[in-house]
């Protein structure tokens, strides 16, 4: 059983949450407790954000720990620099909870090495849809700033999946957490959630001695609201994918660019199976299908791609919503996958990104399987 941390440190929020976080990170870099920080930074043109691994603490001034949009999933960024081993750098990665969960999933798949990485999360207000932000970045910043100041969740302007996210705060798997929705806007709670996190606090001489229950209660309440919204929304989403016709209708605009796959953090393959030579619809199958059906829609196998991808990654889906952002024809991919993911994860009694080191369901088995699985294979026995 994982030790649960119930204490945190209160730090002043007088300079705003972003500045407070940056100062904390700067302090760690200064003390040498960290070698580098992975953090979002606004691009020079000012119209987007990118992940930057910062070593030079001066550069931190330009970073924005809580970016209004999520153009690239943090787990992808982390994977790109730790996939091949832990290296010599002690890195802190400041990411949204869904990014942390994706990083945990990737670590189970050996695509991220967390050994020298400290995962730092915060109470996430959600992210703005990329297309909205790109329309007018200045306005986007403003909208997000106001979001950041609210204590409840505003779902109007955030991405649809953020609007129904019930996993926006501390997780079993992050090392350190910034409780932004603390009792008052004057304070931020700094909550260690692992030995690594406690270690960093110690280095900074911060004693996590404050009780965090009122913060936790607030989060719990928000979560309940979100859970309800999620459930309600899924009732609607369900109709978009149930049955052949709905599936076709939902994906009919798909142009087959596979952006959803390439931005997906847990689709870690170099080449998607469904683009590979192996899975390429072969000549015979196209001919055969055309002959049988009188016609065939092209490019072929678009539905196959989406359903196949659900099979491949729904168990690891963290509902980060990047797929929707990246879809040029605005298919609500993220909600569909979240819906399917929630259900398959339930069957396998698994929650993606909840626990480091837990094997992903397809890497393991039980001789006597869970009820959900047994239900599904019913008929096999005998």
């Amino acid at each position, binding site marked *: 059983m994982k030790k649960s941390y119930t204490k945190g440190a209160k730090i002043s929020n007088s300079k705003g949450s972003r500045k407070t976080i940056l100062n904390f990170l700067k302090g760690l870099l200064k003390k040498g407790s960290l070698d580098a920080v992975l953090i979002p930074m606004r691009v020079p043109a000012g119209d987007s954000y990118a992940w930057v691994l910062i070593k030079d603490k001066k550069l931190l001034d330009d970073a924005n720990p809580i970016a209004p949009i999520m153009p690239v999933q943090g787990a992808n960024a982390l994977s790109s620099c730790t996939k091949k081993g832990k290296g010599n750098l002690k890195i802190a990665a400041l990411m949204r909870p869904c990014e942390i969960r994706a990083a945990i999933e990737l670590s189970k798949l050996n695509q991220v090495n967390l050994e020298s990485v400290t995962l730092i999360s915060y109470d996430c207000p959600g992210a703005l849809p990329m297309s909205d932000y790109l329309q007018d970045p200045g306005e986007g910043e403003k909208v997000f700033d106001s979001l950041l100041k609210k204590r409840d969740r505003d779902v109007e302007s955030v991405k649809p999946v953020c609007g129904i996210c019930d996993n926006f705060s501390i997780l079993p798997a992050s090392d350190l957490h910034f409780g932004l929705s603390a009792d008052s806007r004057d304070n931020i709670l700094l909550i260690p959630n692992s030995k690594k996190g406690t270690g960093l606090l110690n280095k900074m001489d911060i004693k996590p001695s404050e009780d965090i229950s009122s913060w936790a209660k607030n989060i719990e309440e928000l979560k309940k609201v979100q859970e309800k919204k999620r459930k309600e929304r899924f009732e609607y989403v369900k109709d978009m*994918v*149930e*049955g*052949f016709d709905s*599936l*076709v209708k939902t*994906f*009919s605009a798909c142009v087959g660019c596979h952006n959803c796959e390439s931005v997906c953090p847990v689709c870690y393959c170099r080449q998607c*199976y*469904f683009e590979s030579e*192996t*899975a390429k619809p072969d000549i015979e*199958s196209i001919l*055969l*299908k055309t002959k*049988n*059906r*009188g*016609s*065939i*829609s092209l490019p072929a*196998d*678009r*539905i*196959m791609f989406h*359903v*196949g991808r*659900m*099979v*491949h990654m*729904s*168990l690891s889906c963290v509902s980060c919503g990047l797929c929707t952002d990246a879809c040029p024809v605005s298919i609500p991919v993220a909600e569909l996958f979240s*819906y*399917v993911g929630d*259900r*398959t994860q339930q*069957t*396998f009694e698994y929650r993606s990104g909840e626990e480091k080191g837990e094997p992903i*369901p*397809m890497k393991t*088995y*039980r*001789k006597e*399987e869970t009820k*959900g*699985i047994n239900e*599904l*294979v019913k*008929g*096999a*026995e*005998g």
Partner: protein
Amino acid sequence: MKPEGKDNFTPKIVGYLCNWCTYAAADMAGSSKLEIAPELTVIKVMCSSRIDFNMVLTTFFNGADGILIGGCHPGDCHYDKGNYYTRRRFALFKDIMKILKLDPERLQLSWISASEGNRYAEVVNSFTEKIKKLGPNPLNGNPYF
């Protein structure tokens, strides 16, 4: 394209059978001259764990009316534990078909050991019957799959 009604419907069923158990059972059923529905075509694999999602999807989306996966009983795998993984993969796949309401009934996993020639015949015949009742794979008229 003439849509086949349920009455004059000859389903196309693919049976993935593991070399060591179910394929042997199929042989035994054959030697026993049991009457088995002709609609099932057998594809032999060394172990049921060889079957990946895409294979099932391809089969299904290409218009197969039913898919039967036959493997050794759990614990009997010739390769120690392959079929435990088959079971999980199958469950996941079926789950997704269920969620998407993509005719999950058309997919069946059965553990049939080498000595169960009778069971093989029963399973194939009843599965074929079931598929006949379900009617043609609706994907067959759908240009998208």
